């Protein structure tokens, strides 16, 4: 095993180009477990800790460019307003110690369906900024990023630099079911973002299909129903039947398996419950914000 220590992003890309089998390691929260448990013996470890750019973020007009290694702790503490869904998801990641080390780049690189960040990124809307020494930078839409169980759209010579996440234009929520009240891997997870500017709703489901997925049919149903009922304008309460239909469609978007963490049927059920609850929470928040805005006007 060789340990590569690039001091800059350019050096990192060069190293990855030279050694495409090199395994990037940043927070180490996935890679080191595999090494400690003898599940993986990479030829090269590519340490990204000294690439300072990866720990920066920039809040732009419409998006936040979030460095791949920005620790979850920073996201939940400092990006709560811009990325509320991802901040909530970050708070559910493992333990304080892990949140201090791990970042979204690791979740994306591992591309486990159980990664906590995925549903929030899917719901918010995001693009993954990847780069290679040979071909430079490209942006991969989050919807095209997950290609299979623990597989992503990255080429062997590419590294993840950042993720460009759409700034919240409305309430976002995130829920995750685990069989422990802290430090637990998701049995399944759900992210929901209201986008009042486009009058759309986006979702993200974790751990209930081979990859993180969106519940597109549910989104389309809800978009249409909200539009048709004038909900965005009148701020009416979402009826239980509407919420139930949305929840059912979210459940139907799952393609889960039975494993030691839970059964497929439970996952489907739980995603539905989380969909209904997060819809209620976000919609109530939207209504509250509307009323406040109206009151101020």
């Amino acid at each position, binding site marked *: 095993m060789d340990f590569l*220590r690039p001091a800059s992003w350019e050096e990192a890309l060069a190293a990855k180009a030279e050694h495409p089998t090199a395994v990037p390691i940043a927070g180490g929260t996935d890679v080191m477990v595999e090494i*400690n448990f003898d599940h993986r013996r990479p030829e090269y470890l590519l340490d990204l800790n000294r690439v300072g750019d990866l720990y920066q973020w920039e809040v732009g007009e419409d998006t936040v460019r979030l460095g791949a290694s920005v620790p979850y702790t920073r996201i939940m503490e400092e990006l709560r307003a811009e990325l509320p869904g991802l901040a909530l998801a970050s708070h559910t990641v493992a333990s304080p110690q892990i949140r201090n080390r791990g970042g979204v780049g690791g979740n994306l690189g591992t591309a486990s369906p159980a990664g906590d960040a995925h549903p929030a990124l899917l719901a918010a809307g995001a693009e993954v900024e990847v780069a290679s020494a040979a071909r430079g930078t490209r942006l991969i839409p989050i919807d095209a990023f997950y290609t299979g169980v623990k597989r992503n759209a990255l080429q062997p010579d590419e590294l993840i630099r950042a993720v460009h996440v759409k700034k919240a234009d409305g309430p976002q929520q995130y829920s995750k079911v685990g069989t422990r009240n*802290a430090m637990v891997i998701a049995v399944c997870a759900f992210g929901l973002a209201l986008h009042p500017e486009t009058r759309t709703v986006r979702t993200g489901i974790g751990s209930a299909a081979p990859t993180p997925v969106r519940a597109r049919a549910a989104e389309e149903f809800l978009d249409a129903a909200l539009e048709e009922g004038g909900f965005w304008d009148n701020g009416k309460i979402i009826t239980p039947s509407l919420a139930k239909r949305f929840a059912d469609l979210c459940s139907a978007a799952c393609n889960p398996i039975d494993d030691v963490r839970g059964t497929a049927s439970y996952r489907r059920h739980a995603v539905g419950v989380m969909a209904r609850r997060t819809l209620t929470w976000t919609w109530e928040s939207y209504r509250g914000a509307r009323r406040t805005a109206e009151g101020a006007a």
Partner: protein
Amino acid sequence: MRVNFTVNGRPQEADDVWEGESLLYVLRERLGLPGSKNACEQGECGSCTVRLDGVPVCSCLVAAGQAEGRDVVTVEGLADYARQRACGTGSCGTPLDEAKGWQAKGTDSQTGEGTGLSPIQQAFIDAGAVQCGFCTPGLLVASDELLERNANPTDADIREALSGNLCRCTGYEKIMDAVRLAAARQSEGV
């Protein structure tokens, strides 16, 4: 490979490090600092918690090479670290710049021998928070960091801050007591 970093204020060098070794392994097996514990080696128990550039992390998940040039505080250096912090905030009259320039002196600081205990260490003993003690070093580092950034935590705050540290003996009640006790003593300046 060779790795150079600072542990408990003292420059350290480890040679012939296998690239897959963790910071935890280097501390325990190469630097004679076994206080950080190897309970799960998968980031699920917190027994190996150390401060890496001030931040609590699981040292089992830090590749040894990633510690290059960085600053590590382990349970063995916790008492000195707490003392220097107290000095840094002026409560022992030491100027801040001196505290920043802190270096542990001699082997005593490495092993904890001959030094007093930090308030959180004393509180763990007094409250009965130590049984088998295997989780204790990690809990101490995590608790100390909690009280550093939140001098008066609620019970829910304590539970959240320590939710990454498993204990199998105590049922956590006495650990809660210990952190409350340390916070109370801290606020009374005891």
